[in-house]
């Protein structure tokens, strides 16, 4: 059959050198930034000279690893992202080894290397994802005069966002349907959503006050903040795995932007979360005599970031489950590990100082810590929390959208 194979992509791109240069600039910026995240204020200035001395070795090792792992020969493919992740890890480890070999331990921070790897991988992956989304957007136009060519039409982020707005009634109806189905016919109805947090908080408070004796003053309040934000994420993630595969007949019969299904799952859980917050937050503020403070105004900003992050994850999980049914089980395991890696039932301040940054770098920590800083400590979220939260939210959202849109056409064939 002499038909063109759509999977084939241009093998050589003239922009390889440009990509390499951009990566170089990012790598040079990323290592000092990692030190800035690791060390606060004056400490940072003490460590900066060491960081700058080690910079050429680290950046050199990272770029070498990127080239050796053939990141530049597989540009613009999905596999490049995976290679990038591995190559940047190898490069950073190699860089750390070289620094230790030539300079010894003085002024070298292991936590800064981990932060450097995450920053580098997300920045390099981020701009590549942005470029891929741009190519999706500016692909060959499907419009032929008064007609549209189904063979050329491709999902892209711009059109999808427009159609999400056009289909807002559907999103609203899907969310309402789930809310109705959840509470219809049960005596307590919405009150059930409040029972679970109350029981959890009671149990953990008893355990940490009387058994482990590590509780800080006002522990139930601290716990509640993290627990509610966590269960929003965890239940949205769990629900999104079924969003595509459980809507088989719909997918086979009606056209609509498929992204609506996982997004509706996120919004349903967001609604529940907000209703619960609306009940508990005034109670807690009254009971613990917390006076409202300026930083609390930032709550919506971090909530938006967490929603973006959750939508990105939900898109990945919904499409991932369609192609790979084990995703559900892997998610369960990942969630139970992630729960303990997020400072929910322990305050971040109780973590040994050298692990604090690592805990903060776990995907959900920045959001949870931000909420705790605003409401419990009544502080403005720190620079590190902003940087990590913003990177994770935007990065995950872009990667999730891109991967979802690039497989959207094939989802129905997987059902």
């Amino acid at each position: 059959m002499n038909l063109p194979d759509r999977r084939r992509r241009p093998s050589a791109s003239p922009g390889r050198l440009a990509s390499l240069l951009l990566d170089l600039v990012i790598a040079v910026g990323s290592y000092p930034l990692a030190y800035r995240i690791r060390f606060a204020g004056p400490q940072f200035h003490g460590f900066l000279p060491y960081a700058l001395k080690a910079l050429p070795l680290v950046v050199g090792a990272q770029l070498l690893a990127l080239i050796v792992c053939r990141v530049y020969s597989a540009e613009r493919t999905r596999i490049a992202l995976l290679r990038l992740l591995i190559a940047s890890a190898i490069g950073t480890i190699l860089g750390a080894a070289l620094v230790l070999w030539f300079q010894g331990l003085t002024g070298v921070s292991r936590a800064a290397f981990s932060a450097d790897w995450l920053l580098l991988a997300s920045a390099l992956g981020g701009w590549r994802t942005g470029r891929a989304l741009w190519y999706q957007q500016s692909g060959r136009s499907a419009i032929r005069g008064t007609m549209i060519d189904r063979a050329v039409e491709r999902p892209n982020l711009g059109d999808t966002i427009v159609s999400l707005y056009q289909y807002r009634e559907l999103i609203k109806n899907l969310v309402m349907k789930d809310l109705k189905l959840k509470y219809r016919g049960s005596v307590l109805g919405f009150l059930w959503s409040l029972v679970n947090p109350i029981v959890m908080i009671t149990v953990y408070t008893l355990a940490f006050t009387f058994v482990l004796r590590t509780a800080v003053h006002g522990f139930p309040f601290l716990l509640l903040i993290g627990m509610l934000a966590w269960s929003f994420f965890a239940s949205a993630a769990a629900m999104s795995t079924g969003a595509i595969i459980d809507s088989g007949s719909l997918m086979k019969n009606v056209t609509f932007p498929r992204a609506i299904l996982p997004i509706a799952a996120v919004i349903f859980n967001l609604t529940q979360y907000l209703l619960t917050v609306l009940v508990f937050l005034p109670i807690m503020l009254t009971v613990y005599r917390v006076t409202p403070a300026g930083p609390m105004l930032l709550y919506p900003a971090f909530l938006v970031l967490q929603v973006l992050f959750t939508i990105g994850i939900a898109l990945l999980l919904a499409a991932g489950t369609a192609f790979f049914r084990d995703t559900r089980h892997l998610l369960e395991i990942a969630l139970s590990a992630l729960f303990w890696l997020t400072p929910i039932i322990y305050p971040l301040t109780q973590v040994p100082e050298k692990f604090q940054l690592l805990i903060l770098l776990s995907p959900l920590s920045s959001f949870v810590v931000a909420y705790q800083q605003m409401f419990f400590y009544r502080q403005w979220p720190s620079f590190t929390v902003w940087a990590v939260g913003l990177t994770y939210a935007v990065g995950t959202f872009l990667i999730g959208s891109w991967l979802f849109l690039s497989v959207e056409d094939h989802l129905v064939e997987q059902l």
Partner: protein
Amino acid sequence: MDPVIVAENLSKRFILRHNHAGELKVRFLGLFDQSKRETLEEFWALQGISATIGRGEAVGVVGRNGSGKSTFLKLVAGLHRPTSGRLLVARGARIGTMIELGVGFHGELTGEENVYLNTSIHGLSRADTESIYPDIVAYSGLEHFMDVPIKNYSSGMHMRLGFAVAAKLNPDILLLDEVFAVGDADFQQQCIDTITDFRARGKTIFFVSHSSDAVRKICRRVLVLEHGRLVFDGHVDEGLDFYTRLLTGEPAATGELATEYEAPASVE
């Protein structure tokens, strides 16, 4: 004639996955046992189809099971993406599909809630739905059941409500796939009347069926598909004759259009 659907050398390839490696277990077993490894096979559901359908035409598509009729319809609907060739569809035309009726209905919700959910799946706003809601209810004849959960409906009621929603969405291009096969004589008559009315109002109809009676009632033009290829395109009487001869010409076929018939694995 103003074309609304144009296919040029249209082909669709499916990848058949034997031992689909969607599970870790399958991947793991595949490491040891060659026969359990995932293998991919190409299957061309449509090959080199070229046809133009004008505004207001009612076109029947006949062919055996597995001949590619439904795939053709799903490509026009945008449910599957063509592998090669061109498939032009009029921009801005509202496309209505009747493949299964009552898709997306949820048993726990009432008839009314389901209507609102279902119309929004097709992109209608609440105001749009409110304006056609009385028509939908009247058309389905289920006035007294709209506040009852759909799980308590009979399958006939379920279908009537689904059909009423699909009909009142008022599409410009109506894609029908075997919707009459189910339902009693009254319901079938209502379907035929609705579609005849659509045709009278100048809507384009693309009708996939095994029933030559239904095709004859609705369509003037017929396409015959055989193993993914277009083998006839012309007047309905000649086309149905052609199709009957095609069926009887094959030794395995008994010649009845309405019977289920599996296409043989190899042709000729």
